[in-house]
């Protein structure tokens, strides 16, 4: 399969993730969308590493996965705290910064 196929797949996953981030009302759903976007990036990195015989892409991917885990841990912790305080995780209600 050519490189373009992987890239198209990654773009589709990224678009789905972005769509989720933009439309989901639930904060956990938004976090899931972000995970999808990050993994789309990972697919890109691995594809390029494979087709250009460059190990740096794989190593970079490992780092990204680790960071993603940490990000999810922090993100979920924030969501839990918000739920404790506001008794909701509806994104539309979390508008404390409204001007």
């Amino acid at each position, binding site marked *: 399969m050519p490189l373009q196929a992987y890239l198209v797949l990654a773009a589709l996953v990224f678009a789905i993730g972005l769509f989720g981030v933009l439309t989901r009302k639930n904060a956990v759903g938004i976090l899931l969308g972000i995970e999808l976007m990050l993994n789309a990036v990972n697919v890109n990195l691995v594809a390029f590493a494979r087709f250009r015989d460059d190990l740096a892409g794989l190593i970079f991917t490992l780092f990204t996965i680790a960071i993603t885990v940490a990000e999810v841990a922090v993100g979920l912790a924030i969501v839990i705290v918000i739920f404790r305080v506001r008794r909701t995780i509806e994104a539309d209600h979390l*508008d404390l910064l*409204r*001007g």
Partner: protein
Amino acid sequence: MRIGSPELALLVLALPFASFLAIGLIRPLRRSGRPAAAISIVAMAGALLAAAAMSWEGILVARALNPSVLWSWLPADGGPMASVGVWVDGMAMQMCVLVTLISLLVQVYSWSYLADEPPPSLGRYYAYQSLFAFSMLGLVLSPGFLQMFVFWELVGLCSYLLIGYWYERPEAARAAVKAFWITKLGDLGFVAGIVMLWSATGTFDFWPLFQAAESGALHVDGLTTIMFLIYLGAVGKSAQFPLHIWLPDAMEGPTPVSALIHAATMVTAGVYMVARAYPLFALVPSLLVLIAWVGAFTALLAATMACVERDIKRVLAYSTISQLGYMMAANGAGAPEAAFQHLTTHGVFKALLFLGAGIVIHHFHTNDVFRMGGLFVQRPWVGGPFLIATLALAGVWPLPGFFSKEAVLAGVLQAHLSGPFLMLILTSFLTAFYMFRVVFLAFFGHAHDHHEHPEPPLTMDAVCRALAALTLALGLRAAVAGPHAEGPAWLPWFSLAWAFAGIALAWATYQAGVLDPARLSAAFAPIDFLARRRYFLDAIFAGAYRFALLSFSRVVGWIDRYVVDGVLNALSAGALRAGDTLRRVQTGRPQDYVYGVALGVLLLLVWAQLR
């Protein structure tokens, strides 16, 4: 024409200036008081000696010699614009002697008069005195209009400083500012006039201007306007109607300062300037007539005000205005020599009158003549000199005032100015009346209190006696030299008769009690009413000043409120409204921001594709 040595003239100028610099710049000396006074007096005595030597050694020269030492000043394309230096002709020499003499005597007198002043103030006083003498001497010796204007303004500054010497007192500060403002009003005309004259003729210097004027080669468009503007400077400085209102208020200064301002410096500057620039004024006969009328009117107006004044110093101030009117009338009548003669004699006896009044005020602790009395019996040595000066001012033979006043009257009569002549004759009657009113009230009559007064300090007494001796000597010299005023034979008797009529009226009213002062004032009720209110001139000036200031302030206030503030308010209101509109963009919902980021990235991609 006689001219003097210019080196001595420069020495005359340098001595007071050096004393001013020493006192003004060396702080410990200024704050020490008495030593500063001693330096100033010694410098002034040196200047008097130099002036006397210069006058003594003055040599007769042909008329066509330029009697001046000049250096060029203000270099410009096509030669220097002006020159500075000394112009030592007869008039300047005589004036130098007068100025240095009166300044010296006033400074010696102040030594005792201001003995109770704190030393720093005394040092300041003598610094001003030295600067005043220097400025007036510089004015007198000016070889051109520009230098004269510079010293003219310096004289104005010094009078401001000295009138406001007791600046803690609000009246003194106000009087100083008033004197400064009113004289500045005239100075505006002066500076405009000399600049216009310069642009028309290309020179500020007297010599080329006078040469051209006397040979009839001076052709200037609008010379009448130019000379009128220059005359305005003299109107302000020499207290001519309607700018005379600053002079009575100038009495707020110490009495020796009044003597100096009224006798030798400041007010004589205007008369001197017109007499000095007479060759130019002579080209404009219509202006000369105006000068004569204004002078005579000023003389009469001031005399009526002096008749109703209770303050002894203010009476003398009005008499100064009145005598300045005489001098200006003589200038206008084409007799600048008579004006100058009256200026010098008046300088001597007016200084004596003021210095005598200073002793009188010290004695009675009041300025009000109606609360004085009997001084002549208690202090004949104070009363004598004052009486001599009063007789001189009233124009009684053989005192100098008689001769100079007669010269003025003869000059006015010869110019066929019958209106001003009648006014001046009436003024000489009033002069005798109001001066003897003061004398009878303060020196004769009965004493109001009987407790002992301390002797006046010896220096003050000695100065008065010296001036009285000088007055007598001047008068006797004029009497011995014989009549030189070219008037009709009846004129001396005529003016003498009016003077004695004035004295007799004052005697009948205030000494013998034949006439009731109240009935006298009732007989001249309208004039009395107006004179007591100073013809409302002060009120008119104050009103005009206030009106001009208020209307100007209103315009400025309107601009500030509606134009300057309006722009700022519009800007701030616009910022507020814009902020109010734009804040709705900030929804606070995270997803809207992500929309923004996504949209921005999209736009960047599109832009990158299209580029």
